[in-house]
């Protein structure tokens, strides 16, 4: 099933053919979840807003595969992918949360921008750009004080890299050698503000040197490339050598949120990036035929359909419980 060249590449990394298919399936699951989310929104079956990461799936799966089950994740508002890729994630509980149901990860109180599962060290998506960065410092301190070999991954975007919180957090993590992967998904736009207009440097990772840490830019649509840099960064962190700044260069295919007319970019640009599509790219690398790939993708779509059924059959939160969860 897997091409010889690919098999060799996978073996070098200690990834089995079966694991590679799981990684591919995870990307397809993310894609299917988000396409379904968009559809449900268009049909008026969910309210609010959402931030889709279609086109960025390799970033999420590459990072999570490099981390271990007891590591920590701090996620962004565009976080469906990282959440689904995380250990033990349930599409049912995610979809139920998205649909505001009591059975959702956050009992319908959080929604798309706040999905968390603290029991599995998924410390949550964040509605504030860069909002998870200061929190990562505390997670790093916990690991350091407990003397475990855990690592925290703090995901943020090119927008988050321009907040003051980024500076404070990366500096603190650096001076204390905290085991944190600062994972910047540079999807080229902070809402409408293009990366090139918001930065006067070539790479977000150039900023690493200002904090005395290693920075690296990687093709965020290349699953194994993302995995490779993440593995290196995780190893450094586990050795006590402090944080790494990874810039995963990718592209957001859809608008910022549901109300984006996308006047700030051209169709040609979007099309250009769509040709670098990560799912087909990895499937082709594995030597899969179109039929084989489609068959696997159909499995992912089916799983997401099941999650919709689960969610639709789930109860709404009870208004009588509205005050719950404010205080412990």
């Amino acid at each position, binding site marked *: 099933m897997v091409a010889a060249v690919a098999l060799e590449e996978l073996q070098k990394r200690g990834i089995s053919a079966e694991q590679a298919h799981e990684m591919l399936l995870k990307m397809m699951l993310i894609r299917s979840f988000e396409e379904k989310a968009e559809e449900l929104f268009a049909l008026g079956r969910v309210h609010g807003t959402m931030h889709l990461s279609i086109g960025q799936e390799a970033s999420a799966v590459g990072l999570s595969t490099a981390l271990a089950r007891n590591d920590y994740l701090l996620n962004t508002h565009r976080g469906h992918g990282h959440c689904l890729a995380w250990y033990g994630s349930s599409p049912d509980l995610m979809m139920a949360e998205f649909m505001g149901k009591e059975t959702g990860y956050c009992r319908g109180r*959080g929604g798309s921008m706040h999905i968390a599962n*603290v029991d599995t060290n998924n410390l949550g998506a964040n*509605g504030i750009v860069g909002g998870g960065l200061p929190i990562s410092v*505390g997670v790093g*301190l916990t*690991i350091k004080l407990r003397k475990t070999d855990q690592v925290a991954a703090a995901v943020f975007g090119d927008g988050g890299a321009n907040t003051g919180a980024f500076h404070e*957090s990366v500096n603190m993590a650096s001076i204390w050698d905290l085991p944190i992967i600062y994972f910047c998904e540079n999807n080229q736009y902070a809402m409408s503000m293009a990366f090139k207009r918001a930065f006067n440097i070539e790479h977000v990772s150039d900023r690493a040197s200002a904090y005395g840490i290693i920075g690296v830019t990687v093709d965020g649509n290349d699953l194994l490339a993302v995995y490779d840099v993440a593995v290196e960064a995780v190893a450094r962190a586990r050795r006590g050598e402090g944080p790494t700044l990874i810039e995963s260069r990718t592209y957001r295919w859809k608008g910022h949120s549901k109300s984006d007319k996308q006047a700030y970019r051209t169709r040609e640009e979007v099309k250009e990036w769509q040709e670098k599509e990560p799912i087909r790219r990895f499937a082709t690398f594995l030597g899969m035929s179109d039929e084989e790939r489609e068959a696997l993708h159909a499995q992912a779509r089916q799983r997401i359909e099941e999650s919709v059924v689960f969610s639709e059959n789930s109860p709404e939160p009870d208004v009588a419980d509205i005050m719950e*969860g*404010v205080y412990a």
Partner: protein
Amino acid sequence: MPEQNGHPNGAARELTVVEALREALNQIMAIDERVFVIGEDVGVYGGAFGVSAGLVQAYGADRVIDTPISEAGIAGACIGAALTGMRPVGEIQFMDFVTISMEQLVLQAAKIRFMFGGKATVPMVLRTPAGSGTGAAAQHSESLENWFVHVPGLKVVMPSNAYDAKGLLLSAIQDDNPVIFVEHKLLYKTKAHVPEEMYTIPLSKTNVARQGKHLTVIATSVMVQRALQAADILAGEGIELEVIDPRTLMPLDDAPIIESVIKTGKAMVVHEAVKTGGFGGEIVARIMESEAFGYLEAPVRRVAGLDIPIPYNRTLEMNTVPQVQNIVDEARKLVKGEY
């Protein structure tokens, strides 16, 4: 009896607020490895007002962490550590600087538990010195407690004396919620009897600091001390003030306040923070909404800071926030039916 603990000779053991807070930190750090202190100059310097002096020598730099000038980072570090099982005690050097931490405190610390469906806890304390009276002018003298009262998910504690400071801080550290712990700078050197043993004062338990029958005075922080002094003065004129100290502003235990107003028929709120949008408005509203309304014999008055930034000049500064004489004058008018 707490008075006798550790004092075979029966003499009351007195500590300042600074010493009481330090003793609380020392005692809890000795028995709970999850507790650590983090903030600007909290290590060798001992904290801007000396509260953490000696802790770094006792517990090491890993648990008494000096930070860069990064107030958002300090707040975030507390949140992340609390979320993963620690019990951090952060210090924001002056309450004015919480402005830099607001995103983390208001949008993260306060909301994480609720947003995550009640499945996470953020057991952190953020200590911060507040208030005027030190000639530090407008950016080092603010009393911003009511900003936090307005944010569900946060608890807000303001001790008025050394005994309460120790017991409330120990409760705050053991509480599973984010607690903003506001310390008035003018109280730091004031002394009170403080037992040596570890003891807690429950949060959200309002204290009747002095009993009286003519007027209920609800005061916070340093204003509790001023109200008590005013009560001493007025006692000489036969006017008996009942002084009530909420100690925890949010969630507020308002029952003792309502009961007191039913008894006295008159009420006044005293706080240092600016009057408009201040905590006094909330207290007045709670009284008006309660059965105490029917017992009121006079308007409920607020004695609070002027609606201006804290000025530098000593005389202007003194005239910006309530002093003992202001409380005496207002209380006398209220009791004598001049409103």
